[in-house]
């Protein structure tokens, strides 16, 4: 009896230890959004590349998240890469066919010991499928990068892209 408890304890401890690195992933603060709704993405960067400080954060804006506006950040240069959308999206009566495809905060310095958040907002198209939606993100440091671009959704993924779950929105928007 005692032995099985001990085993269970070890198993739980091991599980906890194994799942710990998940907290060190780059993640989004809000994990769920409705289709067709506006979403404020708060990207949490928990550490640098190994021990190196983060100098740039690049976020890819996938198709279906439109009317994107990043929030400027003191000490960082903000740039966007724009381009045509594959589809067209209705923004309160205006049809949008192009917009931000990538956001780049650069020339900054976020030491490994510190934590920071990067914010942008936009709208999820009502035509998207419910389910996981990924924002592939790359942290760039002095001599390397951390690429959070795994969009397979695999449980064991080393470096999953930050994601949220899209759910069915209200029938009328």
């Amino acid at each position, binding site marked *: 009896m005692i032995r099985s408890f001990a085993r269970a304890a070890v198993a739980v401890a091991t599980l906890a230890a194994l799942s710990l690195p998940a907290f060190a992933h780059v993640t989004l603060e809000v994990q769920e959004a409705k289709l067709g709704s506006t979403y404020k993405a708060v990207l949490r960067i928990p550490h640098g590349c190994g021990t190196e400080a983060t100098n740039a954060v690049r976020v890819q804006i996938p198709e279906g998240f439109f009317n994107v506006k990043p929030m400027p950040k003191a000490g960082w240069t903000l740039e966007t890469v724009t381009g045509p959308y594959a589809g067209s999206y209705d923004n309160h009566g205006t049809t949008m066919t192009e917009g931000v495809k990538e956001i780049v905060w650069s020339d900054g310095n976020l030491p490994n010991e510190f934590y920071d958040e990067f914010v942008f907002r936009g709208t999820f198209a009502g035509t998207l499928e419910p389910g996981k939606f990924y924002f*592939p993100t790359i942290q760039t440091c002095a001599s390397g990068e951390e*690429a959070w*671009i*795994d969009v397979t959704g695999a449980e064991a993924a080393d470096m999953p892209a930050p994601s949220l779950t899209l759910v069915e929105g209200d029938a009328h928007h």
Partner: protein
Amino acid sequence: MVSFSRRGRVAVGLAWLFLLAFCASAWAHAQLLESAPVSGSILRTNPGEVSLSFNEPVTPLAVSLIAPDGTATDLLSATSGGQNLNVTLPRDLTQGTHLLSWRVASIDGHPIGASVVFSIGSVTQTQAAPGGDPLVAPLLWAGKAALFLALAFGIGTAAFSRVAPLPKRSQSIAQAFVIIGLSASLFTLCLQGLDALGRPLTAALSPPVWTTSMGTSYGITACVLGLAFLLSFLGLRRGGRAGAALIVLSAILAPLALALSGHASTAAPQVLTRPAVFLHVAGILFWLGALIPLAELLATAGEEADGALRRFSRIIPFAVGAILLSGITLAAIQLGVPGPTWLSPYGAILAVKLLLLLLVFALALYNRRSLTRPALAGDANARRRLRASILAEVVLVSLVLGLVAGWRFTPPPRALAEAAVVADPIFAHVMDEKVMAMLTVTPGQPGPVSIAIDVMDADMAPRSVQGVHLALSQPARGIQPIVQTATGAESTWQVNDLTLPFGGSWTVAVTIRLGAFEQRTITGSLDLP
């Protein structure tokens, strides 16, 4: 007469040059080092081509692909030659097990061939491919054995006429062997072609068989040997000084011919091996050529016999010295460093040969030390025993020559060792709908390996990517992924210093960075023996 023999020599030299030019398309003895895909691999799609890497340049002779339904497609025209053969496969290969049968000629003239079996999708039963005639190999061995015997007792005996006048019967024996040799040269040339193409005996007269044979280096050897036998025949018939000149020329051409092709002659360093083969064969011709005339001479008492025996005894130490020195050199090169390859058929033939030679040398020593002097002194008993001993030598060396003809079919250990060093890389092919990767694991065995990764797009064209890393695991045995980042650029990547501790089925996950924000992880399996 002197001017005649000089003219004769010039004529023969020109004829020889002509023959050389005729046989100039000679190429190299090769061992297959690796094939891609490796034989036995199961691929998800048509590999597009099969590449075969050899240890030296080869000429493709026959290449065909046998589909799962047994139909054969001739791919010789789709094969590009050199040290690495690339066989472009038809685009519309069906699912199932295919067999690529290939045959190539190497510089030493020996054709070699094998098959690469690969399956697309799954393994299926493939109809057996038609092979060559089973009679060709034994006939080729018999032909080679006849050739060697004819060299020793035809040209060798004829050459003994330079030491002592040939007695009557020896003269006829020499002539008979020279004629056998002449036919054996033609016969083996034809069989070489049949063997090279894997054709049946009934195809003996078809022109491709002969052109193929002439295309191998054995072509020159057979030409020069034929010429040597012809010269000896004419020399024996003609007699006199002109005849003697022809015989001498023949005795030079014969070892030269053997130095032009064969396992030994093409081993590196050729500066050493070719002269060694020449000396070896020349020494043997002198020694063995003397046996029959000596035996006949000893049957009759007389000045002639004594003179011949005396001169033979004076020269033979040099000939035997040359044979031993060159023989040891060649054996050392051919055997390479001691190892399991010494137990190959090549090694077995060498061992039996050495055993027989030990007996021959024991006899020769006994003849020399115990019998020669009393025989010369007129001891009839000693002469009789010397004669019997010499005849025993003839039988033993005939066995040796027959044995040596079997070397035609056994690659020497050095070639085996070369092949073993990089043998059997393992291939794995992984793909999804957008990108695929071909992995080559070298060597294909547990332990330290390197893995080459070739990235392609869905149309099999090289795909330039930003990075690749591998994760190898054995989930069934609870072995967590061994992860390694590949180095390289564009479509060619490489993982070195990777150790795969066990054999068995490894799950390999290849993560390919297609762009800044795009990566794909494709999973496949890798079966390590």
